[in-house]
């Protein structure tokens, strides 16, 4: 280093770009000189966790990423899977947590915009969006404002763009008070013959900038997203981008039309780190260089310096490499949609990113140093689980007050099982999310088969548009999709909890009749620089990897969002629950046989698949359950352990039952356990149910509200019972049980137990009122 002079930057200036002192030295080593201000900024964003996965890459390596349906795995803008008959699906999940904390509406809106661009950059038309949202308690006024803003932002962008928002999950927990999670997943159907990739090629080929103009908005959002939130973060508001879904709707049409010409060699969305990231990644992936002239870039404000051009995260922009000589033809397509399209650079042989500005070179960096040869931190994992987990694991059911047929006494107050069931239905995490999804257009495009709230997963028919290169004779296939994560499970046991996330996603798909195919994951965690944070991240990744292998659902990409911690007024960091959200897609072979969760007819028989009501206590437990938190205010215990073989068998049986037309409704038991699952089937169908449980050695609250056990509640018509039961006997042995019968419309839900009598008796009206009004009632408190 002796040949290099003293740094022109103060330690504060370097830290302000999100670069650590060691990393600065690495930059100097890669360049052989000190960077200038623009270059320092480029390294700052490209070496952020958001762009280079420096903390998570060693852990992500263990994920299975290949399989017979996987066409494109991790590394491109989105993964692509083969659904047969010329149907190829691009899908991906991405987070916009930090922007949404600061500016909920625009933060969430641009999160949707970004994930949609990832999809259509590949040549796929977006056909569905899902989202996974987490907020603090709705009792808190600020949380209500963030929640309402996020939902409105998602609605604004998706509705205007014209993509149906078909599903998702919403959790409320104090762990997310200052740091909401906003993860959006998009699915697209390939419209171009060739999948459009991002590696630049063809020395001398023009680089085309398309879409919107560049301004100072969203400066350095990627490094902002990789830092802890604090009171001062509110001052970072310029780092939040502003979206224009109308412009993006024009952009998708223009891009797909441009790709159809076959003259676009490569494409890259300008997401995090805008021009810097797109040029560096296209060059690095293609093993070439890009020479780009900032004076050619269309701007929305004057007087910008290279640093600002390079770090701007103005939305709705893309970079193409196109065939030489086809500039005019392609530019014409974008002009027709009133979009910008200018040749701003060239592909060069030397593998560098060279940025010109006003006649001189503003930055010149080896492409690999920005996008591939980036820092990696192999950290030590705690040899033993941390104290908080070991303490929590000591919890047993014996710590709960005693209970009887009449209910349970909690803090001196007697609660009947009816009271408890209603209180759980009124818990925002369990309650109906209608207030949310009613604001999302979930039917545009005319392909939505299972709308939000009706089934355990969304189902969308796969019907190529007239613009598609693929012609499908009978549009009989569909895609089912779900996003899942019970983060309390992951918090209490990251390895087991992560397995449960994948198992639940697969189970949800199976409940609509879909075969699980592939996964996109969004790892939302706290700081990896803290021992507990890294233990959570590493253990959860191990669990995800194992479960994805067990279910044969490879990971095709995703997103990592670390440093999800809020710093309170006293300066204490408060990490979120570790939240590895799994987005899973499944194939529906025949859209004529999909299933939702509503009972269909009075007299149908109700069955429980999976662990019966006198279960294995490690697989079915009140540990980590919603009941324990909502009713007993206790966050403890071990989450239910996943039995992969049982999960696979139960799910296969459920799918086959649906395919053969035996199973008329299916719903898995998750938060709130068996009683809540049954109540939800009643609520969806407006029908009652009579449930007769056998006598049990377990506590009654365990029977009603324990979670886990690979459980699915299904209903079957009388004429199919014989065939169905012999099929169950053959494939599930003892892991199924008859529960009761479906009741009449507007009847009641009655749960009885042999030798105990009635435990629950509530009218469906009452269940519906409680379930439907829980969120709206809290929102209208403000």
């Amino acid at each position, binding site marked *: 280093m002796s040949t290099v002079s003293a740094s022109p930057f103060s330690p504060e200036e370097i830290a302000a770009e999100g670069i650590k002192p060691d990393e600065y030295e690495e930059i100097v080593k890669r360049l052989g000189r000190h960077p200038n201000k623009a270059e320092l900024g480029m390294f700052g964003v490209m070496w952020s966790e958001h762009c280079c996965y420096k903390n998570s890459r060693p852990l992500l390596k263990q994920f299975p990423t290949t399989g017979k349906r996987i066409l494109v795995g991790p590394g491109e803008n989105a993964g692509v899977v083969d659904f047969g008959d010329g149907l190829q699906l691009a899908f991906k999940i991405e987070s916009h947590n930090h922007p949404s904390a600061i500016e909920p509406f625009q933060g969430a809106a641009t999160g949707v915009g970004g994930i949609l661009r990832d999809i259509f950059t590949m040549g796929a038309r977006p056909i569905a969006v899902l989202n996974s949202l987490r907020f603090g308690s709705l009792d808190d006024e600020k949380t209500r404002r963030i929640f309402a803003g996020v939902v*409105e932002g998602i*609605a*604004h962008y998706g*509705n*205007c*763009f*014209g993509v149906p928002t078909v599903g998702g999950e919403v959790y409320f927990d104090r762990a997310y008070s200052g740091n909401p999670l906003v993860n959006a997943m998009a699915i697209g159907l390939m419209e171009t013959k060739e999948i459009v990739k991002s590696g630049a090629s063809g020395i001398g080929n023009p680089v085309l900038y398309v879409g919107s103009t560049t301004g100072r908005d969203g400066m350095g959002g990627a490094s902002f997203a990789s830092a802890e939130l604090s009171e001062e973060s509110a001052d970072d508001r310029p780092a939040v981008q502003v979206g*224009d*879904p*109308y*412009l993006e*709707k*024009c952009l998708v049409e223009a891009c797909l039309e441009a790709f159809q010409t076959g003259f676009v060699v490569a494409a890259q969305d300008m997401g995090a780190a805008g021009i810097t990231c797109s040029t560096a990644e296209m060059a690095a992936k293609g093993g070439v260089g890009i020479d780009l002239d900032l004076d050619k870039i269309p701007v929305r404000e004057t007087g910008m310096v290279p640093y600002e051009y390079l770090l701007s995260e103005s939305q709705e922009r893309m970079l193409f490499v196109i065939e030489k000589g086809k500039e005019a033809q392609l530019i014409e397509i974008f002009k027709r*949609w*009133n979009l910008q399209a200018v040749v701003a650079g060239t592909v060069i042989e030397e593998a560098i990113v060279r940025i010109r500005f006003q006649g001189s070179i503003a930055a010149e960096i080896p492409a690999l140093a920005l996008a591939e040869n980036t820092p990696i931190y192999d950290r030590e994992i705690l040899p033993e689980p941390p104290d908080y987990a070991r303490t929590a694991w000591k919890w047993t059911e014996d710590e709960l007050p005693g209970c009887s047929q009449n209910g349970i006494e909690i803090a001196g107050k007697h609660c009947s099982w009816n009271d408890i069931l209603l209180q759980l239905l009124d818990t925002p995490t369990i309650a109906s999310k209608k207030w949310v*999804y*009613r*604001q*999302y*257009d*979930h*039917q*545009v*495009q*005319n*392909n*939505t*088969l299972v709308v939000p709230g009706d089934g355990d997963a969304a189902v969308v*028919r796969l*019907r190529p*548009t*007239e613009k598609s290169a693929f012609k499908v004779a009978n549009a009989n296939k569909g895609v089912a999709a779900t996003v899942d994560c019970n983060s309390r499970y992951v918090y209490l046991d990251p390895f087991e909890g992560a397995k449960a996330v994948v198992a639940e996603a697969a189970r949800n798909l199976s409940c609509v009749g879909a075969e699980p195919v592939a996964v996109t994951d969004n790892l939302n965690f706290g700081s990896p620089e803290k021992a507990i944070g890294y233990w959570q991240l590493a253990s959860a990744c191990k669990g995800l990897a194992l479960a994805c292998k067990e279910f044969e659902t490879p990971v095709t990409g995703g997103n990592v969002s670390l440093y999800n911690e809020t710093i309170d007024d006293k300066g204490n960091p408060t990490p979120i629950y570790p939240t590895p959200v799994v987005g899973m897609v499944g194939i529906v072979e025949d*859209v*004529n046989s999909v299933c939702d969760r509503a009972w269909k007819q009075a007299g149908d028989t109700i069955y429980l698949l999976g662990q019966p009501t006198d279960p294995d206590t490690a697989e079915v437990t009140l540990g980590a359950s919603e009941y324990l938190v909502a009713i007993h205010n206790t966050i403890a215990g071990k989450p239910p352990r996943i039995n992969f073989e049982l999960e696979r068998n139960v799910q296969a049986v459920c799918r086959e039952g649906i395919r053969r037309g035996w199973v008329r409704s299916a719903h898995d038991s998750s938060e709130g356990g068996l009683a809540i699952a049954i109540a939800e089937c009643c609520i969806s169908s407006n029908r009652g149910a009579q449930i007769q449980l056998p006598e049990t050695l377990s506590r009654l609250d365990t029977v009603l509200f324990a979670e886990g056990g690979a459980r699915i509640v299904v209903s079957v018509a009388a004429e199919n019972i014989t065939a169905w039961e012999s099929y169950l006997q053959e494939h599930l042995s003892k892991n199924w049980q008859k529960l009761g019968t479906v009741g009449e419309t507007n009847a009641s839900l009655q749960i009885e137990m042999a030798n105990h009598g009635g435990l629950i008796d509530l009218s469906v009206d009452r269940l519906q009122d409680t379930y439907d009004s829980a969120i709206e009632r809290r929102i209208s408190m403000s």
Partner: protein
Amino acid sequence: MKFGIIVFPGSNCDRDVAYVTRDILNQPTRMVWHGDTDLSDIDVVVIPGGFSYGDYLRCGAIAQFSPVINSVLEHSNQGKPILGICNGFQILTELGLLPGALIRNRDLHFICDRVPLTVERTDTIWTQNYDQKETIVLPIAHGEGRYYADDDTLAHLEDSGQVVFRYAGNNPNGSLNEIAGICNENGNILGMMPHPERASDRLLGSEDGASVFTGLLAVAAS
């Protein structure tokens, strides 16, 4: 019967309508770009839902200055059928082809749901395949769907029987007189906030909206 579906930048239900007219009903269908001006080959003009020009300024406000609009007006002068759905209804009111206006929903939120409607008239070219006072369920998806008109206009609408669809049960958006769809006095222009094209495919669970289109075909056949 040839359908022409107007495509503005920001339209997003254009393909949904074409799916029904072309793929389900097997009728010749042409997507008409907003810059086109020739509608002479078109029997029925459909202005689809979406967010034309981003709905900036006011829903449907900018679309009225599109080149294709003069041809739509000419089509209207000839007494030929024009159907405006959702954003299309908003554009028709901005153009003055239908009275009143569509303003922000009562609860200020976008609403996507399936709602019951009463068919108020069955003697129009659009509704002759429905039964009088039949209740149907159609999807709605709008943020600005609350029908508003001054007292005189409203009274005139009612007196001349121009209300074609009315929300039955709960009024979802606060529309005056529960109005969901109206026609002009001549009856050749229909504007409606609900989406009949989203309820025209058996596979998606409802065909309650299909009669809006099949009614027209029956007129043409007779």
